[in-house]
């Protein structure tokens, strides 16, 4: 018993010294680390909206419906709001993909940039490449356009969908809360956030969720989305064309998330996605 006490005391002493050393290190490094985080976030905002006087952080409205949106800033120039930036964190194939989306007040995407991702090197990591990101500038803030006009990356369906799903959520926020753009089509599902159910993603669809559940293959998705339009009554643009593509891509992504998304499975999934 005395032996145990002595040993415990000794160990406690070591732990105490270690804790003090770590506390000291933390004191020294915590400011630079905080500064890095702020710099990175600002740099990301700056990268997507280069023309501005300042970014004003906005309070998040209805945060539960938009779980992936971490922050919304308004872009102010000459005391006018000329656009908004969204900091989004989607569940990717291997971890969170943090990205920044910039949109103008007129309802067009200024740019999308990836802050951080830990996807498969050479495959999913390509979401951070110019080739993929260059599809976004200029696109209208319209969830229908997102599903049909943006190509996913060959062999990296899950990572691509994760990005698209995050951007989709931002578009919805813009349409439903800020009154910019339109969100009249079905939500882009995030295959990673929904690894369990495989097909429909409820967590991602926000306002469309419950009405949607059985309705993935339902061509009437235009009808369900009415339930949530506070959105500008824009043309029901992609309603018809998006349904088939989301339907096919659901089954594909369901297939890819099983097992481990080996190269062949992703290839065939991509072919289905590209054809859509």
């Amino acid at each position, binding site marked *: 018993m005395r032996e145990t006490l002595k*040993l415990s005391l000794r160990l406690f002493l070591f732990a105490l010294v270690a804790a003090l050393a770590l506390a000291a290190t933390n004191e020294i*490094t*915590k400011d630079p680390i905080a500064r*890095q985080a702020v710099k990175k976030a600002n740099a990301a905002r700056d990268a997507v909206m280069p023309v501005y006087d300042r970014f004003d952080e906005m309070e998040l409205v209805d945060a539960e419906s938009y779980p992936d949106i971490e922050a919304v800033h308004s872009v102010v120039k000459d005391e006018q709001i000329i656009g908004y930036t969204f900091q989004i964190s989607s569940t990717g194939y291997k971890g969170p993909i943090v990205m920044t989306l910039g949109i103008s007040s007129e309802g067009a995407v200024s740019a999308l940039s990836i802050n951080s991702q*830990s996807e498969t090197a050479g495959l999913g990591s390509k979401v951070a490449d110019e080739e993929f990101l260059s599809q976004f500038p200029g696109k209208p803030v319209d969830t229908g356009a997102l599903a049909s006009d943006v190509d996913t990356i060959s*062999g990296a369906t899950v990572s691509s969908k994760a990005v698209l799903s995050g951007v989709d959520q931002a578009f919805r926020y813009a349409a439903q809360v800020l009154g910019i753009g339109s969100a009249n089509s079905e939500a882009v599902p995030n295959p990673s956030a929904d690894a369990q159910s495989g097909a429909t993603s409820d967590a991602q669809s926000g306002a469309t969720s419950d009405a949607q559940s059985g309705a993935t293959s339902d061509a009437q998705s235009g009808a369900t989305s009415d339930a949530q339009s506070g959105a500008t009554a824009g043309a029901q643009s992609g309603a018809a064309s998006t349904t088939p593509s989301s339907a096919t891509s659901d089954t594909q992504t369901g297939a890819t998330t099983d097992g481990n998304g080996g190269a062949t499975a992703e290839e065939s999934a991509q072919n289905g996605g590209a054809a859509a």
Partner: protein
Amino acid sequence: MKLKQVFTNGIITENPTFRLLLGMCPTLAISTAAVNGVGMGLATTFVLVFSNLFISLLRNVIPERIRIPAFIIVIATFVTIVDLSIKAFLPALSESLGIYIPLIVVNCIIFARAEAFAFKNPPLPALVDGLGMGIGFTLAITLLSIIRELLGNGTIFGVHILYEGYKPMMIITQAPGGFIMLGLLLAAVNALSNRKNNA
């Protein structure tokens, strides 16, 4: 044991990656790009040197029966210091190495050297052993990384080496490729050292 011998031991005779086969997890996971290999190797070397040094300095103060928790405290403290420092001052490296920096704690090389060498030897040899093992590990992981980056991406340290139309071998940068390349490298190392021993 002479210091020079202690040093070269970690690089050649008892290279942690190719001879002792320790620290395989970070070796396989990190070696997809050469710059990551170097960064990881240097971070591990730092931890190795200081943990060996401190454990050796404390070897008469640490009771044998609690030596393992004591090692862990020392190693984890230094790894955390490295992790916080890299996050604060080298954020780009922190991004690419990600979670593998904190995982240095469970890198078997460090624990093995603490147990097999530092706990039984004076500080200076322990420090030199840590340095040698760390450099040996860095060289090994960098070599593997260069090969994997070259074949899997066509670049070395980000510089395009292979011809334009080169279609990268995707599998090389993923886990199976890591195992395969490591196996081939081990075979090559064994062949070389057998030839040297028989010569």
